[in-house]
C-alpha cells in the first residue's frame, strides 16, 4: 500500500532524511518511533506529499508521490492524515469540519456528506456534538473529530503524526481506543507515536528512526523482545521507565 524506497531529504545543508526504506502493506499497522528531531514527522509528511523530497521514491496505492505528473490533491483525498495539534477548522462547526472536503473535494451531495459525517461522529462517540465549534470540545474530543474527518473521505490508508502527544494524560486513551478499533477493522495505518502500549496491542511492525535514518524495521515481537541496535534499546528503556 505504502512503499518508501531510499528517500532522502535536505533542508539546505541539513540532512533530515537519509536513505529511508520501508513499507506498509494493506491492512498493516506500522508504528514509527524515535527521539524528537529524528525526522519522523518529515517522513510521514513525505508520504502524502506535504513535504517534498529530493531523492528516492514513494508509492501510495501504486501512485508515485514524487512524480511531477501526479496530482497531489487527488492522491491526498484518499490518504487520511491526523496531526499532533488536531488542526480542526475553528470557524466551522464539527459537522462542517466533517463535510467540507466531502463536498468540495469529493463532490458529494450535502445530504450524503452529512449522513456519512453523522455515522462517523457516532462511531467516535461524539454524535451529540455536531453543531458545536472545535473550541468548545476538549483536546481528546477534538482529536477524535479529526480522525472522523479523515475517515469521512473513505481513505485507503491513514497517517498519524503523534496524535496523542498534545493531550492531557487522561484523554490519551479515548483517542487510542478509536485508533485501536480502526486497526482491528483492518485499516492500513502508519502511526508516529511513543505509545508503546498501543504499539504492543495493534502494531504489526515497529520502525525506529534516529538522525534521519531508519535504524530498525522489525516485527513488533522482535522489536520489543530484543531490539538489535543499542540506540533503540536506550530509547525503549527511557520511554518505558519514565
Amino acid at each position, binding site marked *: 500500500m505504502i512503499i518508501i524506497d531510499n528517500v532522502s531529504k535536505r533542508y539546505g545543508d541539513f540532512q533530515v532524511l537519509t536513505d529511508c526504506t520501508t513499507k506498509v502493506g494493506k491492512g498493516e499497522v506500522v508504528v514509527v518511533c524515535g527521539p524528537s528531531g529524528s525526522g519522523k514527522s518529515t517522513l510521514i*509528511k513525505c508520504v*502524502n506529499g*506535504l513535504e517534498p523530497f529530493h531523492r528516492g521514491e514513494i508509492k501510495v496505492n501504486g501512485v508515485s508521490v514524487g512524480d511531477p505528473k501526479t496530482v*497531489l*490533491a*487527488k492522491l*491526498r*483525498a*484518499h*490518504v*487520511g*492524515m491526523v*496531526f499532533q*495539534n488536531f*488542526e*480542526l*477548522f*475553528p*470557524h466551522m462547526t464539527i459537522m462542517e469540519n466533517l463535510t*467540507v*472536503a466531502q463536498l*468540495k*473535494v*469529493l463532490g458529494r451531495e450535502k445530504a450524503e456528506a452529512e449522513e456519512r459525517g453523522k455515522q462517523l461522529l457516532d462511531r467516535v462517540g461524539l454524535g451529540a456534538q455536531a453543531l458545536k465549534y472545535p473550541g468548545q470540545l476538549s483536546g481528546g474530543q477534538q482529536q477524535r473529530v479529526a480522525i472522523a*474527518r*479523515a475517515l469521512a*473521505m473513505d481513505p485507503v490508508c491513514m497517517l498519524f503524526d503523534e496524535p496523542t502527544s498534545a493531550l492531557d494524560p487522561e484523554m490519551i486513551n479515548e483517542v487510542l481506543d478509536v485508533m485501536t478499533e480502526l486497526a482491528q477493522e483492518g485499516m492500513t495505518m502508519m502511526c508516529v507515536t511513543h505509545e508503546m502500549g498501543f504499539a504492543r496491542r495493534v502494531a504489526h511492525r515497529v520502525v525506529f528512526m534516529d538522525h534521519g535514518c531508519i535504524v530498525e524495521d522489525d516485527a513488533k515481537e522482535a522489536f520489543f523482545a530484543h531490539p538489535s541496535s543499542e540506540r533503540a534499546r536506550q530509547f525503549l528503556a527511557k520511554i518505558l521507565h519514565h
Partner: protein
Amino acid sequence: MHEIYEFDWSSIPGALPYLMHGMVISLEITASAVIFGIVWGTLLAMMRLSSISPLSWFAAGYVNLFRSIPLVMVLLWFFLIIPHLLETIFGFPRGTDLRFGSAIAGFALFEAAYYAEIIRAGIQSVPKGQISAANALGMTYGQGMWLVVLPQAFRNMVPLLLTQAIILFQDTSLVYVSALADFFGAAYKVGDRDGRLVEMLLFAGAVYFIICFAFSQLVRYYQKKLKVA
C-alpha cells in the same frame, strides 16, 4: 480694537438637504473604495506571499509605491489623467462627469496598498498547520485559501479593516480638489456662498468627529467581543 466674531448658524438648516446629499456621496465613495480595496488588497497580499517571484515582486513594488506618495496626488492624477484617457481611447463624449468614478478608482487603488499589508499579516496569523490540514484533505491551494485560511484571517482582521475604513472616510474629504460636492465640499460651498465659512467648517468637523468616534467605539466593542470568543 477688533470686533468679536459673532457666530451665525442660520445657514445650516436650509442647507441640510444639500449637505445630506454630500454625505451620501462621501459614504458611497467610502463603501466602494473599501470593497474594491479589500478585494484588490487580498489579491495583492496573496501575490506578495506567493512563491512565484515576479508576482511577489510586483505586489511588493505596488504596495511600496502607493505607500510612498501622498493620497492627494494620486487623486489629482486620477481626476486629470483618467478622464482624458477615457475620452481619447474610448471616445467618451467630452465633458462627461467622471469625477465620481475617478475618485472611487483613485481611493480603491491607494487603499488596496494599505489593505494588502493588513491582510498579509492576517493570512500569516493563521497557523501553518491549517493549510497542511486543508491540503491533507485533498483541497487545492485555492480551496484551502478560500475555505480555511481567508475566513480565519478576516475574522482576526475585521477591527483593523474597519479602522482603516474610518481613516478612508475622513480622507474622502480630499475629493474637494476635484470640486466634487462630497460632504466636506458641500459644506465648503454653502459656507462660501453665505460668507459663513467658519461656522460651516466647524459644523462639518463636528459631524465627521461624531461619525468617526461612534464607529471606532463600535470597532472597539467588537474587538472586545472577539477576544472573549
